């Protein structure tokens, strides 16, 4: 089963390697990982998407909690949360397909962020499933390049994850 985990970490030397090494060393799988500092400059927040049965997930959270530089681990799977991902997509757009690309952009409430006579670069945000759907529609038109951020998540409601 897919799990999305938020990890608050000390923003210090080697912390990303500790987390990545833990996953590879113990044979856990990382589907995506995104990381950036929080409002407090000494703290970063990672969002990790992983897969595994209950036993594996229990080990993943316990092993993460054991890492000294990790402050807090929250598995959002059984919680209500908002999940968003950003994708930048460079699509071939020459005379006959330009209108079609724009129609798709419109449907997915995406944005054109760069234009050339031969291409559009578009920005799509949303749940990963929405991005997948947009890519399916854009593929026949000719995708030159795509880059995805991996999802970030935040819990619903007024309570926040903090240290």
């Amino acid at each position: 089963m897919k799990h999305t985990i938020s990890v608050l970490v000390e923003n210090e030397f080697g912390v990303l390697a500790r987390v990545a090494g833990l996953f590879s060393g113990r044979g856990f799988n990382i589907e995506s990982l995104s990381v950036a500092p929080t409002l407090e400059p000494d703290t970063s927040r990672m969002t990790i998407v992983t897969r595994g049965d209950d036993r594996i997930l229990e080990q993943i959270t316990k092993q993460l909690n054991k890492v000294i530089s990790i402050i807090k681990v929250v598995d959002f799977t059984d919680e209500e949360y908002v999940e968003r991902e950003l994708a930048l997509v460079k699509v071939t757009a020459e005379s006959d397909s330009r209108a079609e690309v724009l129609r798709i952009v419109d449907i997915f409430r995406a944005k054109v962020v760069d234009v050339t006579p031969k291409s559009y670069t578009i920005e799509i945000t949303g749940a990963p499933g929405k991005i997948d759907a947009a890519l399916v529609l854009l593929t026949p038109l000719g995708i030159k390049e795509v880059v995805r951020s991996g999802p970030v998540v935040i819990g619903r409601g007024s309570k926040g994850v903090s240290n």
Partner: protein
Amino acid sequence: MKLTGSQILLESLRLEGVETVFGYPGGAVINIYDDLYDSPIKHILTRHEQAAVHAADGYARTTGEVGVVIATSGPGATNTVTGIATAYMDSIPMVIITGQVPTALIGNDAFQEADICGITRPCTKHNFLVQDLRDLPRMIKEAFFIARTGRPGPVLIDLPKDIQVASMKFNYPETVKMRGYKPTIDGDERQIGKAAQMILKAKRPVLYVGGGASLANADQELLKLAELLQVPVTTTLMAMAAFPGEHPLSLGMLGMHGTYFANMAVTECDLLVAIGARFDDRVTGRIDAFAKKAKIIQFDIDPSSIHKIIRVDLPVVGDLESVLTSLLRQLDEKPQDISIQIEQTSAWRKEISGWKAKHPMGYQASKSVIKPQYVIEKLSELSNRDAIITTEVGQHQMWAAQFFKFRQARTFLTSGGLGTMGYGLPAALGAQVAFPDRQVIDISGDGSFQMNSQELATLVQYRLPVKIAILNNNFLGMVRQWQQLFFDKRYSQTCMELPIDFVKLAEAYGATGLSTDKVDDVETVIKKAFEVDGPVLMEFKVSREENVIPMVPAGKGIHEMVLAS
């Protein structure tokens, strides 16, 4: 007054109570060694950095204090890795300080540069690269705190050369503040209460004790618990000395080379109480056959040990000494239940006695050739009560666990988790440094001994009277045993064709060497060795193709033991 980084390091070590460090100098730590020259801290110069780490490990296992190592950058640092991984697998508190190239050169493939923090990340509890002198006192404080608290383990501090020579005003922090590290100490009282209930209800209980019990100094509480309820105790390799081997409730070791009665008791019990034990595959054999009829309680300091291998019915996380103390307190309030419990478990103890009588631990004695087990029995008989035993890895290690009767906690040092050949001699060295007046004996094999034999020089230099007993079968015996049993006796690369003159080897270093191949001389040799006031190497030429039994073949349940070779 300003101090340099290297002076700050040594001053901090002193404030942490460090009296002895083990190490080896080099360019990237030359400043530290210069300051050591005037320091009250004693330094033991081993002949290899791996040995320095094992020695600090031996020091830590016997004393319970943090072992400390200093090594230079690059090859010095990489040489420590096996020692660190050994300590990590067995949860031994240790701080390793490595020199590093100057910060400005890090990443340039500078001379003797190695990314030791990267290399040791998976085999340390934590590690630090010091990038700013101002962080150094805090990092040392944290390193010692992390190493000795919670589930102990090795912590490495990588100290670049420019930081060793920079200077600042020194203040050692009194406390640590780490957002990500707050080990649990006391167990949950309600969970402990439930454990007490389960134990009082059981009709066929067994205590399964691991290295955690030694690390937490919980041996006295364990003994009380066992005696109070008359529960049989089986120990892992790591906990052989945590429960007296000759105690009537002792079942000895369980697992792959465990006793028949320990393995049967675990298989047939209705309650298994794991105390600081982690269900290692060498203990459990085929996991779905392990303690199948039992409810399982697990006491452990490390939450990640719980439900890792096997789903337990009742977990209690906490320091074992604290948890067992409160368990005993709760049990003490129920004297009646305890008498009922002792009565309702008496049939179980009889059943176990039956197993003990049916297949006691033993071996085929011989008058013509020295049996390795016989040497261990004699060492056990002739050594002092508080003798410290170390081992290498192989058959001799298993025979030591099976036939030596341990009498006191922290007297059996062996590489259980990693299984590191070459561990025993330097570990004995470290133990002897910690306890100059106790007997320290390395039970060794001819193969393992050669992995760190250079440490004979260190023993002689520091007048450390370690006694070494090599059970020489002229084989990498444990591997040979597997080849005999599972590979049609195809002894591929397990016979070291060249016999070594171990007596001359000892003498070359200035130690005493004794050797025999006669059964009748075994006792004399041991007595003589114990009388010598210095390091002695005893070589016993033993029967070459002896096997360690019982043995649970790979993939079998632990009740499916092979009982005769």
